[in-house]
């Protein structure tokens, strides 16, 4: 039963595409529309950069100098708690601040 539920979630999530979450200069927002789950890193970086530069991301002020070259792209498969694919672009997090 649990497997069936997970398969259903997985198929629905695949069809729905991935939500893209962006962190830029302490601001955070999602792309307005989902993207293909299999979009490449290059495609995603271009899409995200353009969106932030033009102010198309709710929650993130337009920044014509936005540059995500040194940022990390994480891809999270759907879970029961979060039943959709999540792609997150974020700054590197090297510190636990020891």
């Amino acid at each position, binding site marked *: 039963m649990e497997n069936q539920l997970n398969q259903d979630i997985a198929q629905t999530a695949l069809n729905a595409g991935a939500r893209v979450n962006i962190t830029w200069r*302490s601001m955070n927002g999602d792309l307005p529309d989902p993207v293909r789950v299999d979009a490449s890193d290059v495609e995603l970086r271009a899409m995200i950069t353009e969106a932030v530069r033009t102010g198309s991301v709710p929650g993130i002020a337009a920044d014509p100098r936005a540059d995500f070259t040194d940022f990390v792209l994480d891809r999270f498969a759907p879970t029961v708690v979060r039943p959709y694919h999540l792609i997150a672009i974020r*700054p590197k997090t090297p510190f636990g601040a020891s």
Partner: protein
Amino acid sequence: MKRVVIVGVGALGSHVAMFLRNIDAKLFAIDDDRVEQRNVASQFHGKTGVGKLKVQALQQTLDFFFRLRIDISHSRLCDDNVEQLLAGASLVIDCVDNGATRRVIQGYVRRVGMPCLHGALAADGSFGRAIWDEQFIVDDAASGAATCENGEFLSFIAITAAQIAHAANVYLKSGVRNGFQIAPIRTIAV
């Protein structure tokens, strides 16, 4: 009794220990560093701890405020001692400040199938993570000063530490592994 090992008790780890003070588990803190004056601004170490080992200062603070007894080890985790220090842990919480030690932790917990929660911060205080090992990739070093340098990000460090402690608490009670990505204005389940 369950045993929760916190590796690194600086800004994140010291606050995680403080937030975990009520859990039904024995805490074990590992760190090789000493408390410096500048640490007091952003870490759960007081002025009376300056000059002491961080694990010793934390042990004394938790005992003084909460009558909580924790085990400590003044060590730098490495390949030679990782087995000795982490063996038998119910949960490992990684709050270190360098990729090399994170890789040692990750290598060990993956080898033995031990649950591990990684805490991490961006240098500019713009992002924090509470991520279970199966989703965690060690970031290469980034430019910028460490988040704990001047206390500017204390409140965000505490938010991230609280999310780590919350994820640990839920796991210890139910076995559910919730991870979080934390921006100053938003927290996302991952």
